[in-house]
C-alpha cells in the first residue's frame, strides 16, 4: 500500500498530498471506507450513532532543510536500543568508511528504553552534527 493510500485511510485529505498551500483548519472527507450507511431515513431504515472518538488535529511540522552534500559532514548514527540496531548501524558506519570516506560518523546509543526521549542527545547532535540516521524500528 503506498503512502497516498495510507494517508487516505487515516482520514487525511488528498489535499495534504498536493502542493496547495491553504490547509489551516481544513476538514477532510469522511473516513468510513465502505457500506451504504448514508441513505435517507425511510421504511425499514434506522439511524445509528457513529461510535468513533475525536482525533486531534495535526499540526504539520516543517522538515529541516537538507544538506548539499554529506562530504565533510558529521552524521550521527543513533541506536534506539531495539535488538540488532547496533549491528545495523555498525554496518552502515562501515559502508560510509568504504564508500563515502569524507563523511564522519558518530555512533551513539540513545539513553533509556526505546520509547523514552533523550533530549541531551538531540542537543548534542544539533550542536556537533550535521545529520542523523536513527535505527531501527525494529
Amino acid at each position, binding site marked *: 500500500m503506498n503512502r497516498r493510500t495510507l494517508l487516505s485511510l487515516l482520514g487525511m485529505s488528498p489535499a495534504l498530498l498536493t502542493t496547495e498551500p491553504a490547509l489551516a483548519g481544513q476538514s477532510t472527507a469522511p473516513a468510513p471506507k465502505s457500506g451504504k450507511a448514508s441513505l435517507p431515513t425511510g421504511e425499514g431504515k434506522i*439511524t445509528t450513532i457513529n461510535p468513533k472518538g475525536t482525533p486531534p488535529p495535526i*499540526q504539520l511540522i516543517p522538515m529541516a532543510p537538507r544538506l548539499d552534500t554529506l562530504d565533510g559532514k558529521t552524521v550521527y548514527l543513533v541506536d534506539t536500543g531495539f535488538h540488532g540496531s547496533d549491528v545495523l548501524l555498525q554496518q552502515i558506519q562501515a559502508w560510509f568508511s568504504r564508500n563515502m570516506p569524507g563523511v564522519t560518523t558518530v555512533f551513539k546509543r540513545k539513553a533509556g528504553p526505546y520509547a523514552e526521549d533523550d533530549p541531551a542527545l538531540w542537543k548534542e547532535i544539533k550542536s556537533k552534527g550535521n545529520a542523523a540516521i536513527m535505527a531501527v524500528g525494529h
Partner: protein
Amino acid sequence: MGIPSAPLVTKAFKDLAILNAAKRGMPHERICFTPHPVWGKTPEEVRAYVEGPDPVSGKPLMKEVVDALTVPLSDEERKLGMVTISVGPPTFTDTAENLQDFYLNNGYTDFLPIILPTEEKVDRMMKGSSHKPDEVVGKMAAGAYPPWSYNVRQVAASAVMAGCRPEYFPIILAIASSGTASLFSSTNSFAFAMVINGPIRDKLEFNYGIGALGPFAQPNATIGRAWTLLSKNLGNGGIPGDTYLGSLGNNLNYNNVVIAEHEDASPWVPFHVQKGFKREENVVSLFRGLGVVPGQVARGSSANENVQFDYQMSDLFSTFTGFFGALIIADPLVAARLKEQGYDTKEKLIDWLYKNTTQTVKDYKSRNYAYLFDYPRALRGDEPWATWYKLPDDAVIPHFPRASDFNIVVAGGQTNAYPQAGNLSYSASVSIDKWM
C-alpha cells in the same frame, strides 16, 4: 532536531512508520526501510541488507539514506498548517442488516455481531449516568500515538454495541476516563484485566463465584467486551499494521480478564481498600501485561494436605517477566489456606513472594525484556537495574524489581483450591461512583 534525519525501519512496520509520522505532523517524512527482521541476524547478513535494496522502494538502501539527507525538500515537504482528521458523519442511516455489515467492514466491532447503537438505545444507555452527553470523558491512545478524545455519548455508543445494560454505564465511563486502551500497539500481544470492587458487584449481579473468570454473567461478559470496543472506537486501537502490531494477538482481547473480587469470602481486605478507597465505594482497577496462567502447572501444586501455595505461586512467577507485575487470582480456598499458613494479610504474602521469588543474574540477563528495557536503564544509572547489571552471573537477585509489583485478589467458586496468576501490572484504580 532542526537538522536532516533519516529514520530506518524494517519493512514489517512500513504502515506504522508512515502513519505515525503523519499523525505527528510529518506525512512526508523520508523513512528508509530494511528487510525484516534485523534482530538475530549476523553482521554479514546485515551487511547484505545495507548493500542491498530498500524493500519498499526497490532502490539501493544507502542511496535512499543519502538522498533522504541531501535531496532538497519538495513543496509538499515544506507545507505548514493544521489538518483535521475526519471520522465520518455523527450518524448513519440504513437497514439494520446493512448497518451490521457497515460497522463490521469499517472496523467498529470486534468482528462479532453487535447491538446497533441506535439513537434510542444510546439515549437509554446514557440514562445510566447523570453526566451530560457532551461532557468530555477523557483521552485515549493505543500506544505512542496522539490520543483521541471522546464524550459521554461516544462512550455510550460502544457500550450499547457490546451489549451492556444502562446500569453498567458508570463502570464503562470510569474505564474510559482512565484513558487506558485494552488494545496496545506492541508486538507483544498484550492482555488487559480489570478488578471490580464494592457493592456494585452484587447490585449488578457480577459473577465472582463458580467460573468467575468465564462467560457466566452479563456484566462480566459485556463490560469486558465494551473495553475493547472503546479501545477501537475511542482510542483508534486495534488496526493491524497501524495501531496494533501484536504478532500472534491475544484471545483475551475479546473481553479482557474481568475479575469481580469475592470480598465476602476473602480473608484479606478488598483490593480497592488497599488502594485507599473505602469498602463501600465502587472501584474498577486496571492491569496490563502478557496474560494469565493456571496455578496447576506449578511445582508444589500437588493437591495434598501439605500443599504450599506460597511456593507454588513463586514457582509460577519464575517464568514471568519482571517488567510486568504478578497478579495473583486466588480462589477463596487458596486464600483461606494461605491465611492458615500465617499470611493473615496480603502484605505478608507479598513480602514473602518478593523475597523468595529470585533468579540468577545470568538468567535475568538472558530475558528479552531485560535487554530491551532494563539494560538501557542500567546504562543510564537507574536502580535497581544498574546494580543488577554489575553483579556476577551467579549472584541471586529478586525476580521483580519491587514488592509493589505483586498484587492479590480473591475470586472463584471454591470447587477446588486452584489459583491463577497474571503476568500483569497494576496501572490505576478509578472511582465508579464518580460516574453514577
